[in-house]
């Protein structure tokens, strides 16, 4: 089935790598800064899941909407979230994209189509459905992407949203990033089925399960779903299989070690199949980019991170008067 998928060309593959490398290096940097006590926040690492949003976002524009969840920094970065504003937000500074009032779990950037990050499992889907309704009413071919995890596939909002989006033929992509664990609960303790994508059939929409860590499969599945949505043919459920390297919440296990509820062998295998270095090696092997070119890309990312971090730490904290602002349109007396 996946053999019929459109394939990313060389330039697109390189673009996917640039996004994935940014996500990985950003995650590594954030964890270091947390360990050093410079960033204090609840943070849900996306290491291991880089390819999914990278291979998806190369087919999206700033006009397309995405909604994501607390483990969503990768989705945001892949879609082009401004790095400086993200870092200032992570540091709780006034210059953050949300003025420091949202934090890592509520990153928002409407100018890039990033409308909602929710801290509630499953709640991206109903809102993304509404963004899809708006996109359909506008008729400009925009799509709305709902990102969520495998845990959210068992929430009532999943059923309501997929059913409504299919019924109204909305241009929505439901991207179930199946990283095998709903918080600390393995998939086998959550459902008897082995693929969440089969649920799509009960809503009358296409559903596919792909290897989310494979840029070809993920790109192809996303491309088909996006084209289908843009053509007014309705939503698609894509279950992208992946793995989470740093557990549910940062600090629950030592770096490079599985959390207590994880299968040790599966964890070791997943680390071995780290999708970012695999894509890196492939780019070199296929002659798409040289080692030096890739090293330059990575160094460029490090420099951007240095700058974003320094600017964030130098920025002021928000004024306490902000407590009265943005509750309503008019400031609270």
């Amino acid at each position: 089935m996946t053999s019929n998928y459109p394939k990313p060309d060389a330039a697109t593959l390189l673009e996917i790598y640039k996004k994935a490398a940014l996500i990985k290096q950003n995650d590594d940097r954030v964890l270091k800064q947390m360990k050093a006590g410079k960033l204090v926040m609840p943070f849900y690492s996306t290491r291991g899941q880089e390819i999914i949003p990278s291979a998806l976002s190369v087919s999206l524009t700033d006009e397309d909407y995405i909604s994501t969840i607390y483990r969503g920094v990768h989705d945001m970065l892949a879609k082009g979230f401004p790095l400086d504003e993200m870092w200032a937000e992570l540091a709780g500074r006034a210059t953050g994209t949300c003025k420091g009032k949202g934090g890592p779990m509520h990153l928002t950037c409407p100018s890039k189509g990033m409308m909602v990050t929710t801290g509630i499992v499953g709640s991206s889907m109903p809102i993304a459905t509404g963004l899809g309704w708006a996109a359909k009413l506008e008729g400009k071919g925009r799509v709305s992407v709902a990102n969520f995890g495998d845990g959210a596939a068992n929430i009532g909002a999943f059923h309501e949203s997929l059913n409504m989006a299919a019924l109204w033929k909305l241009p929505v992509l439901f991207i179930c990033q199946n990283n095998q664990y709903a918080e600390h609960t393995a998939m086998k303790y959550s459902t008897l089925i082995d693929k969440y994508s089969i649920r799509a059939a009960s809503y009358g929409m296409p559903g596919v399960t792909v290897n989310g860590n494979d840029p070809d499969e993920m790109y192809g599945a996303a491309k088909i779903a996006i084209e289908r949505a843009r053509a007014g043919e309705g939503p698609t459920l894509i279950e992208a299989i992946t793995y989470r390297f740093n557990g549910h919440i940062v600090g629950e296990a030592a770096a490079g070690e599985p959390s207590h509820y994880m299968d040790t062998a599966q964890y070791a295998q997943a680390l071995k199949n780290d999708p970012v270095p695999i894509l890196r090696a492939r780019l070199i092997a296929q002659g798409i980019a040289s080692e030096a070119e890739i090293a330059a890309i990575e160094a460029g990312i490090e420099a951007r991170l240095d700058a974003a971090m320094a600017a964030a730490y130098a920025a002021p904290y928000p004024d306490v008067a902000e407590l009265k602002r943005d509750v309503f349109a008019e400031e609270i007396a």
Partner: protein
Amino acid sequence: MSETKKLTILEAINKAIYDAMEADPKVLLLGEEVGDEQGGGVMGVTKGLSATFGTDRVKSTPISEQAIIGAAIGASLAGYRPVAEIMLMNFLAVPMDMITNHAAKLRFMSGGQTNVPIVIRTMTGTGFSTGGQHSDYTEAWFAHTPGIKVVAPSNADDAYSLMRAAIEDDDPVIFIENIPTYWTPSEVTFSKVKLGSAKIVQEGSDATVIAYSRMVLEALGAAKALAKDGISVEVLDLRTVAPWDRAAVLASVEKTGRAIIVHEAVKQYGVGAEIASVINEELWGKLKAPVQRLGGAFSAVPFSKPLETAYAPVAADIVAAVHKSLAA
């Protein structure tokens, strides 16, 4: 519009949504059975709207309260102004996450980058023996949530103006419609009203009765009965429960020195407690009697008629409270 017209509350709400949809193509409507093919709403409030504005803008939905509110939020983030119906107020408990975690907070959590201009219409009220899950007033849940406005008209004129104001408002508004008074007619002036402004519906000098929704009618009944005994009661219709009109309430109570707050919702931890507290904080020393609260009983709304009648305050309870206040 300068012409006035006699309409029921139900007709006034229909007309307000109609006029808003006509004035602004971004106004949308969605909810269970709101389309004409499904009857134009279970009570007929939205009759004729899908026929006029089409089924792209007026969407009957599956029974999916989370998706209804989620869809409204999503469309509003993209610049639309959806009016979502959650049929009964008790059903608001189902999409509570969408309302309190998302609609209420997205503006703040995004640092003002996004906002959620939605109206959530819902109906409720005791009087028709609809029992414990079809009659509750739960406005205190939402009034307690920063970021949500709550509106509860008592008559057709306000119902029209407040619905227009709610749709034009840039933040989420819960719009409470009382079922037993849906068919009560009054003169509608089609005037502009600001959310958060109370209205003195009867002037008086001996005591202030503060009420909203159907309880305003009970308060007016009590005022009429007390007038026969020479007692002059000022009745203040709050109209907007959150944010409430502190200036109007404090001015009236400062004048009369006595305050009784009446709502159909359970008295304990209710809206009346907040208002009473502010009156005490601001007017201590000027009050002639302790502020009193009247509200629903601390029970589920009962089915049996005598129990249901005893559940919510009636005019006689308000009369007794005013006498108690005068005797203090």
